[in-house]
C-alpha cells in the first residue's frame, strides 16, 4: 500500500471512529440520560412518565412509613413548598433519614407519585448532592 493511501485510510478510519463514538453516545443519551427533577419542577406540569429520572429534595419529617413486608417503604420528598410521595422496595442507604437530603432514581406514575428503584443519600455530614443543594437554595431564595 502506498504511503499516501495509507495515511488517507488511517485518517478516514479515525474520522469514522469519532463519528461512530458520537453517534453511539448520542443515540444512547437520547433515551438513557436521567433528567433531574425537584418536586416543584413537576408541580402542575405534564409528568415525564416514559423515562427514568432522578427526583431530589429532602425527606419530609415524619413521612417515612415502613410497609408490612418489612422491605418496602413510602416517604415524601419535599423542596420546602411542594411534595411528591415516593414508594421504594429495598435496603435504604445508611444515611437515609427524615429531614436529610435524598435523590431517588425511578419513574413518575400517572397519579403523580414516584416509584424509586434506587435511593441515594448524602454520604456524610458535609456531603449534599450538588443538584439537591442547588434546588434547596433556589427555594429558600424564593421564600425570602
Amino acid at each position, binding site marked *: 500500500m*502506498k504511503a499516501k493511501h495509507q495515511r488517507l485510510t488511517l485518517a478516514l478510519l479515525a474520522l469514522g*471512529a*469519532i463519528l461512530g463514538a*458520537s453517534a453511539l453516545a448520542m443515540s444512547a443519551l437520547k433515551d438513557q440520560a436521567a433528567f433531574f427533577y425537584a418536586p416543584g419542577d413537576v408541580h402542575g406540569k405534564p409528568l415525564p412518565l416514559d423515562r*427514568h429520572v432522578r427526583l431530589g429534595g429532602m425527606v419530609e419529617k415524619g413521612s417515612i412509613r415502613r410497609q408490612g413486608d*418489612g*422491605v418496602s417503604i413510602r416517604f415524601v420528598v419535599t423542596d420546602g413548598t411542594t411534595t411528591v410521595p415516593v414508594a421504594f422496595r429495598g435496603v*435504604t442507604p445508611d444515611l437515609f433519614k427524615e429531614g436529610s437530603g435524598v*435523590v431517588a432514581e425511578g419513574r413518575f406514575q400517572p397519579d403523580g407519585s414516584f416509584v424509586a428503584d434506587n435511593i441515594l443519600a448524602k*454520604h456524610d455530614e458535609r456531603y449534599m448532592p450538588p443538584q439537591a443543594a442547588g434546588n434547596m437554595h433556589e427555594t429558600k431564595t424564593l421564600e425570602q
Partner: protein
Amino acid sequence: MIAESGLAALWLATGFALMQVMLAWGAARGADSNGAPMVMKALRRVAIVQGLLALGAFGLLVTLFVQSDMSVLLVIENSHSMKPLIYKVAGAWGNHEGSMLLWVTVLAVSGAGVALFEKRLAPATLAATLGAQAAIAIGFYAFLAFASNPFLRVNPPAPDGQGLNPLLQDPGLAFHPPTLYLGYVGLSVAFSFAVGALLMRDVGPAFARAMRPWVLGAWIFLTIGITAGSYWAYYELGWGGWWFWDPVENASLMPWLAATALLHSVSVLATRDGLRAWTVMLAVVAFSMSMIGTFLVRSGILVSVHAFAVDPTRGTFILGLLGLYIGGALALFGARIGTVKQGATFELVSREGALVLNNLLLSVILGVVFIGTLYPLVAAAAGVQLSIGAPFFEKAAVPVGLALVAATACGPLLKWRRDQWKALLGKLLAPVVVAGVIFAVAFALAGAEHWMAVLALGLAAGLAVASVLPLVRRNLRRTPIAIWGMVVAHLGIAVSISGMAADSAFKSERLAAIAVGQSVTVGPYRIELVEMRPVVGPNWSALEAHLKATRSGGAPFDLFPQQRFFANPPTNTNEAAIATKFDGQLYAVIGQGDGQGRWQLRLWWKPFVTLIWLGGALIALGGLLALIGRVRRERRDAENDA
C-alpha cells in the same frame, strides 16, 4: 517545625523545577556545544534533587499524621488520635490537599527516574523531556502553594481531630490512591517524552523504545488500581455491584483506555516504525485524561462519593492548568506534526492493521465514556440538570467492547507487515468452535433475555483459546518473556470478561425481612438468621447478624454482616459479609429492623464473580512480564551499544 520544613521543601522543589526548565532549555539548544555533557549532567542531578525534595515533603506530611499533630489543619480535619496507625498513615492522602501532594510527588519522582535511568535517548530529546516534566510540576506546585497548602497551621491547636470518613477506613484505602496515582501520573512521562520528541523533531523508534517501559509501568499500576478499586467498592459499599460508572471510576478508566491504546501503538512504532503521529497524539491524550480525571475528582464539580473537595477556586485553578498543558501540547502537535516523517507502511490485514483496529475501538470506547462523563457537566452549565448512569454506558460502550474482544483474539495471530485472510481464518478455527459451544450452552442456561452477557461469554471463551495460540508450536523456554506477557494479559481479559458476563447473566438476588430462626433462599443456598448481636471494634460499635448458609449436600458455614456506627465523625456503614466459593460468591447485607423482630436481609449469589478481579490481576501480571522482558532487552542492547 515539621510542617514548616515540609512547606520549605515544597518551595525548594519549585525552585529546582524552575532551574530544571532553564537547564533543559540550555541543554536542548546547545546540544552540540562543548559544555553540553556538563549541562546534561547538571540537569539530571537537578531533576533527581527535585524528586527527592517532593518525596521529603510528602514524608513530612505522613509524619504529621502519624504524630497526630493537631496544630495542622489538615490533620485536624482528617485524622483522630484514636485511629489505628494504618489509617493515620493513609489519612495523609485520604483528603484533597494530601492527595494533590502525593500526585505532585509521583510526578517529580517519575522525572527523577527518567533522569536516572534513561541512557539511550538522544541528549537533546532527553533534555526537552525533563524540561517538559518540570514545567508540569511547576503548575501543580503552584496549585499546592496557592490553593491547597497541606501544611497550614491553626492557632490554638485543636484538642483532637474530626476523624476520617469511615467509608475510607479500610485497608483498601491505604493502597488504592497511591497505586492509581502511580498510574495516572506515570503517564506524565509519556506526555513529556512526546513533547520532548516533538520539540526536538525526533519522533521515531528510539523515542518509542524509551517511552515504552514508562507506559507499561503506568499501565500496570492503573490496572491494579482499577481492579483493586472495583473490589473495594464491591465489598465496602455493600451494594452488590462491582462497577457503578461513577464519574470517579470513569476518571480512572479513561486514562487506562488511552494508555492501553498507547501501549499497543507504541509497540508498532518501536518495532516497525509505523503510526508515528498517532502514537505521539495518544501519549498527549493519555496524560490529558489523567489531568481531566484529576480535575473531575478534585474540583468538586461531581455528584459523587469521592467529591469531597467543594471549592470553586481550586476547580478554576486546575482547569487553568489543564487548559495550559493540554492546549499547549495540542498546539505543539499541530505546529510540528508536519515535520514528523511518514513511517513504514503496512497492509490492512497484518499485525499493524489489527493494532490500528484495537486503537480505533479503544478510542471509540474512550470517546463514549468521555461524553457520558462530561455531558452532565456541560448540560449543567447550560442550565439542564441530568445524570448519566450505567444504562447509557452499557448500551453505548459494551457492544464496542465486545468487538474489541473479537479483535484481540485475531491480532496476535497475524504476521507483521502483511498476512492473508485465509491464514487467519484457519488459525481461528479452534477459538470459533469453542466460542460457539460456550455460546450455545450459556444461551440454553440463561435464555434470550441475557443475550449480551451470553455473547460476551462466548467471545471471552474464544479469546481465551486464541490468546494461548501464539505459544503453540513454540519452544516455550525460548519464547521471549514479552510474548508471555501478551498471552497472560489477553488471557486475563478473557477471564475478567467471563466473570462480568457470568455475574450479569446468572446472579440471583433476594430481598426479604425475616426474624431470628427464619430462613430464605438465594441461588443454591438456604440462609438462616441465627442471631442478632452487638459487637465492638477499635473505633466503632456494630450490630451483627449471624447467618448460617447451607447448600444441598454441603457443610453449613457462617456469615456475619454488620451495621457499623462510628463516633468520629458520627456515621453508619454497612459491612457486607462475603463468602467465596470455587464457583462464586455469596454476598449478604443486613438492613434495618422493623421494630417487630424482623430484619432486612439483602442477599446475592454471584456465580464466578471473582473471575473479574482474577482477570484484572492476570492483565497486570501480563504487563509486568512484558515490562521485565522489555527492560532486559533494553539493557542488553545498551550493553551492546557500549
